[in-house]
């Protein structure tokens, strides 16, 4: 009993620490890449070529004063960032890092990821509501509506991958791509999944919830210090997860060769940042139009065609 608890704790600690370091350097990576694309230097003061910048940022955030608004619903206000952060950690438990090093190898891993990421909406919508501020509330509602509507398209694409692979186990999906990566037969699906992943993680050009010009900072306006840090960590953990998931579903997985796997994940992350540096923001009605009237019918079409191809081959 004690041994299993200790073992599970150590395992989860490894995953969490690795993830936190990855998140820290993802923020630095983003700032450096953006700077290079805009012909700037980026952070280069703290540490060698700015390598310690994320640590300094994190320290600054934690040392700041925690402010709870007097009109806020204090319990939910405290719970909301914890939900966001916890869900983004839980999602990583089913993703295999090595051949045998996976925290929980469950049969229906893809379904688990879909279910858990649908819970992730609650952290944002509750944060917006509990802050009792108009900016935060509007940002939370926008964000939740956006995530729910783009989840449908993403789910349909993942469903077509499941039909192709014939399994919902993540490792088996990886094994099925030994001959050919799924990005080749499912190229339109990959493009759609990439767009939906951008919208799911509230990244530009779909960063309406954080539209600085209109809503100050969206759902996390009232948060300071550790609460804000938890939102920030959760968001970036989700971004890394999405890039790793895209690498697993379309580019043959990350287990086989560790260097190549890491390269796949980082290149997906790079393309996320690339889009941010390139494209302007959507208007909100354009965003909803794109989600429901363009991506969803296309995703349905791809799913039907994938299913019919699989059936006809059998």
């Amino acid at each position, binding site marked *: 009993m004690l041994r299993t608890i200790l073992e599970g704790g150590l395992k989860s600690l490894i995953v969490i620490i690795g993830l936190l370091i990855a998140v820290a350097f993802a923020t630095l990576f983003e700032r450096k890449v953006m700077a290079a694309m805009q012909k700037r230097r980026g952070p280069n003061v703290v540490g060698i070529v700015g390598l310690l910048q994320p640590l300094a940022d994190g320290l600054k955030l934690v040392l700041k004063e925690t402010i709870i608004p007097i009109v806020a619903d204090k319990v*939910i206000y405290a719970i909301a960032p914890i939900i966001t952060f916890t869900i983004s950690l839980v999602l990583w438990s089913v993703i295999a890092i090595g051949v045998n090093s996976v925290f929980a190898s469950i*049969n229906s891993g893809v*379904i688990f990821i879909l*279910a858990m990421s649908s*819970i992730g909406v609650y952290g944002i919508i509750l944060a917006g*509501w509990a802050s009792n501020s108009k900016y935060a509330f509007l940002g939370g509602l926008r964000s*939740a509506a956006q995530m729910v509507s783009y989840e449908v398209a993403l789910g349909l694409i993942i469903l077509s991958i499941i039909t192709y692979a014939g399994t919902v186990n993540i490792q088996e999906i990886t094994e099925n791509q030994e001959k050919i990566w799924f990005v080749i037969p499912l190229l339109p699906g990959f493009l759609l999944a990439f767009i939906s992943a951008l919208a799911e993680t509230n990244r530009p050009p779909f960063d309406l919830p954080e539209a600085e010009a209109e809503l100050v900072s969206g759902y996390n306006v009232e948060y300071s210090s550790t609460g804000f840090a938890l939102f920030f960590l959760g968001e970036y953990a989700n971004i890394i997860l999405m890039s790793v998931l895209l690498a697993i579903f379309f580019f043959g997985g990350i287990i086989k060769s560790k260097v190549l796997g890491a390269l796949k994940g980082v290149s997906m992350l790079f393309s996320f940042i690339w889009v941010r540096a390139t494209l302007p923001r959507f208007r909100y009605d354009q965003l909803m139009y794109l989600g429901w009237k363009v991506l969803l019918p296309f995703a349905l079409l791809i799913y039907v065609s994938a299913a019919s191809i699989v059936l006809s081959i059998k």
Partner: protein
Amino acid sequence: MGTTGLILLVLGIVIICTLVILRSVNPIYSILNLILIYGCYASILLTVEMEFLACIYILVNVGAIAVLFLFIVMMININIVEIQETMRKYNIYMFVGIIAVIGIIGIIITNNELRIKEDVIKEIGLIIPTVNNIEGILKTTIQYTDMYELFIETSDIRNMGSNVIYGTHSIWFIMACIILLIGMVGVIYITEDLIIEKRKLNERRRQDINSQVLRDYQETIKNYSIKKN
């Protein structure tokens, strides 16, 4: 504490959450407790090794339905005094709920093992000794398929679909689909009257281009000769 104890504990949480749902003044708290109840049911499904069903349960109920509830409740402004007045009629259910909580705590304390169905049937036979042969009657009349065994045997999703949903129990699947369809059509039918009335109101103001174009010069403009007195 084995599996049954865990299930009973989760059921106790469910009942406490139900009480909170009924008593809480703020509807947001009610919905959050509803989500907690969904989570409890999913964990019960996990303890009996139906992980696929648990994931689907979370995906559908928490991820889609409860988010919509939360959205709607957040958007509308609800008068708290009104809620407190309507709450009074739930007091009787509160009483029943408290009795249920006490009963579950009693079961946890007294015996950890849930009795299996044969034992229950025997016990009913012991309680009512005047009716002869009750055991036989119960065993012959009650025939049910054990869904749990069916799911455990076919834990693979493909088998579950081909054997249960599209196989032996396809009729129930079709019935559920029809009920869903009836629900959707019914809602549209109920609200249709309102839509039609609105349309009628709009029709009066609407510009009828066809009749405007078809107006004839000869018919619309008439010359009258007026006699001068």
